[in-house]
């Protein structure tokens, strides 16, 4: 055992031992617990961001709204965007990756369990740091895109919180990205070749690579902003020769891959849910995997379509118009393959299936409106109007959020051993589907009717009143649907149907272990012989090409009496949370760069260094008592 390499000591470097109870969550390194914490935290932020959206929609329900003033409105729309992107869609995807990737590839944990815990705590503290700005003089109010030079001329600490908050969240993303890349490359069960991996694992890999290369770019932009705001640098100050377009290039060079970082995990979920409920293997596995990778590559060559109105010149505009059009091709391939997966199947319309179908239906709309953005001369009409707002909500809500909910309903029984109520689930789906279209459908019309984004008010007589009212009603329907989901969770907790190991007759490895899986995931590391290996253990193909159930095939091994005996898992650790605690302290130190701030900087650096020090020196595992 590798533990033999470390002397086991008591004292400062002792690892906590308990893996149950309230406190175990703070020090856990179990990818499943961390995954659950990610999803729960992200869901709480989803509610917060949703409340901001409700306030925004209430303000805009009628012309000359009186609910929010310009100041608060600007903070709300900025924080709504930041929350939904960095604190909801990304971490929800990461949460599912955390829970599932090791299970899907037949591993006992991720490659770096403590780094994984560190990612989570940094994400949580980064989110809290960002939200603390509301109580410290005002939240960021320059938009999630924070264009220069407005991002440095806005008064107060808001945009400094933006620069540092996103920086902290970036640390979490980067650590997570490295972890997932290594896990997927190196931790696969025997026989789990790359082209046998479930599509969700592939999409996780592509996403992780996008994060790996996109995060440093935004880090640089944010550092430059931070030095401008806090230390009198002049990166984006046009009066000193600074170029506001530099910010835009850096931001969108990160920002466009970011879009795929948000959507690819959802695409992966859908690609795993559809085969299960169609009773068929995925249609065109290779094509769907390569399309995902192609999107990942091409995503680096389209950023300037966010800048069609900045005067880049006809050559650049043409080039980016073309690249933007052609990224629609791999996207289209995916849609056709999903429909091909259902074609000829025997479709069971469970809640996860409904959300996946909703994803496809809405993503088609978002994809098509995306193509209309690529015609650069008309994009000059669409840019910064509600038409764009409609587009990205169809992609990120109709797409990503629907996909994530599909994943929640699908894997809930695996994580908690109980099925969510199908009845409430369907109510949730239809309410959300209706509310979503009611909210964001009218945005297309509003945008084409000339309503710009990011305006806190509008006057009567522009022709915008009715559609805005409709949209506001839709927003409250979405809120209602979220309440139904919460009710579903609460009710299931009390009296849910026992799931068993494989409630959906599914295809992939995670269903071959118990629900919930033991800490070590699998009694024995599976030997993989096929894509959809678990399915092939349950069914053989008859000579007529039809599946036939194997007697006792795929039975889940539950050696209750000696479960887990002899399997060494890494012990919990104090240090990830300690090291993570230092980062927000550093953030506050920069924001309040006086004597207190400098003290905070020193304290933050010390705490982080102490955490890392202990991290390196603690033993690999503590003997279980």
């Amino acid at each position, binding site marked *: *055992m*590798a*533990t033999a*390499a*470390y*002397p086991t000591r008591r004292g400062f470097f002792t690892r906590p031992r308990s893996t149950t109870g309230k406190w175990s969550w703070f020090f856990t390194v179990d990818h499943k617990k961390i995954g659950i914490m990610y999803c729960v935290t992200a869901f709480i932020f989803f509610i917060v961001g949703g409340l901001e959206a409700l306030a925004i929609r209430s303000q805009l329900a009628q012309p000359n709204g009186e609910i929010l003033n310009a100041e608060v409105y600007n903070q709300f729309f900025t924080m709504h965007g930041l929350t939904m992107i960095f604190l909801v869609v990304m971490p929800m995807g990461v949460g599912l990756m955390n829970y599932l990737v090791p299970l899907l590839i037949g*591993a*006992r*944990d991720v*490659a*770096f*369990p403590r780094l994984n815990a560190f990612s989570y705590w940094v994400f949580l503290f980064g989110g809290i740091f960002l939200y603390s700005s509301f109580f410290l003089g005002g939240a960021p109010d320059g938009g999630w895109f924070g264009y220069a030079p407005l991002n440095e001329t806005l008064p107060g600490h808001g945009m400094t919180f933006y620069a540092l908050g996103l920086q902290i969240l970036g640390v979490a993303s*980067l650590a997570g*990205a*490295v*972890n997932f*890349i*290594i896990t997927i*490359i*190196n*931790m*696969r069960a025997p026989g*789990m070749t790359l082209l046998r991996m479930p599509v969700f694992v592939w999409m996780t890999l592509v996403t992780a690579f996008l994060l*790996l*290369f*996109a*995060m*440093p*770019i935004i*880090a*640089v*932009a944010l*550092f*430059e902003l931070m*030095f*401008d705001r806090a230390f*009198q*640098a*002049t*990166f984006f100050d046009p009066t*000193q*020769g*600074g*170029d506001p377009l*530099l910010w835009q290039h*850096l931001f969108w060079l990160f920002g466009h891959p970011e879009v795929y970082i948000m959507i690819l995990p959802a695409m992966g979920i859908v690609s795993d849910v559809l085969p299960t409920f169609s009773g068929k293997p995925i249609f065109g596995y290779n094509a769907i995997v390569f399309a995902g990778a192609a999107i990942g590559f091409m995503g680096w060559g389209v950023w300037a379509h966010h800048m069609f109105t900045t005067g880049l010149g006809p050559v650049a505009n043409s080039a980016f118009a073309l690249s933007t059009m052609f990224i629609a091709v791999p996207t289209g391939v995916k849609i056709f393959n999903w429909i091909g997966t259902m074609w000829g199947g025997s479709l069971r319309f469970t809640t996860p299936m409904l959300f996946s179908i909703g994803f496809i239906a809405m993503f088609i709309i978002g994809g098509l409106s995306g193509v209309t953005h690529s015609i650069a001369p008309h994009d000059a009409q669409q840019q910064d109007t509600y038409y764009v707002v409609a587009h990205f909500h169809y992609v990120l809500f109709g797409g990503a959020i629907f996909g994530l909910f599909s994943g929640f309903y699908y894997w809930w029984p695996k994580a908690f051993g109980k099925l969510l109520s199908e009845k409430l689930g369907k109510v949730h789906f239809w309410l959300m589907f209706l509310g979503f279209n009611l909210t964001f459908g009218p945005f297309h019309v509003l945008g084409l009717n000339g309503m710009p984004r990011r305006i806190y008010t509008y006057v009567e007589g522009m022709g915008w009143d009715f559609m805005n009212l409709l949209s506001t009603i839709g927003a409250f329907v979405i809120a209602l649907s979220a309440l139904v989901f919460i009710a579903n969770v609460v009710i299931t907790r009390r009296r849910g149907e026992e799931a068993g190991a494989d409630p959906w007759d599914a295809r992939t490895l995670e269903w071959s272990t118990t629900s919930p899986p033991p800490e*070590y995931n699998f009694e*024995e*590391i599976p030997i993989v012989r096929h894509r959809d290996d678990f399915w092939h253990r349950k069914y053989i193909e008859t000579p007529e090409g039809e599946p036939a159930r194997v007697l006792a095939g795929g039975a889940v091994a539950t050696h209750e009496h000696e479960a887990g*005996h*002899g*399997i*060494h*898992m*890494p012990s919990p650790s104090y240090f990830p949370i300690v090291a993570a605690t230092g980062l927000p302290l550093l953030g506050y130190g920069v924001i309040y760069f006086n004597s207190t701030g400098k003290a905070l900087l020193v304290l933050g650096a010390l705490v982080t260094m102490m955490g890392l*020090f202990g991290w*390196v*020196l603690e033993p*690999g*595992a503590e003997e279980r008592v």
Partner: protein
Amino acid sequence: MSTHEVASAPVAEHHTSTGLDNTKLAMWAFLGSECLFFGSFITTYLLYRNRVLDGPTPHEIYDIPFTSVSSFILLMSSLTMVLALAAIQRGDHKTMRVWLACTALLGMAFIGGQVYEFTTFVEEGLKISTSVFGSSFFVLTGFHGAHVTVGIFMLLALVGMSMSGRLGDRHEGARKVELIGLYWHFVDIVWIVIFTVIYLIPTN
């Protein structure tokens, strides 16, 4: 039960799908990310180096002989790093510690040179707030200096671990030294790029 022992992958450093060590692969991935990080700062610098509305220009302020010497010192530290790794691969902890300490000292000399350079520049009127050239120069080279500093801490930690016997056996120790070595060489290579781009390419 023996299968269980072998398969408990997360703590076992061997038995990976590719046969490559997890931490080494992770370091490569991280360094890939770092390329984009420095690349973006270098791009910023290239955009801004000729935009001096106020204060000294690059041409006026750079002391190329001085920086060449400190660059040479940093490059030499890569050599001592290689020697440290060779020592631990032979199982020779003592020699390794000497070479690691040398590497750290050379790194410190480089940082000392940078501190001197920054101080001189500030005295000559180039501050972070003077011009976009000043901002991009200080932040780019400053972040590189921060990377070197982190590297020095890691080298000293290796020395400390070796002295207290925590570095592990020959194989495990070599793995750790190689890991830090990767980082250290990367930081050196980045400096070669920065030195070329910042100091050697003439400005107009």
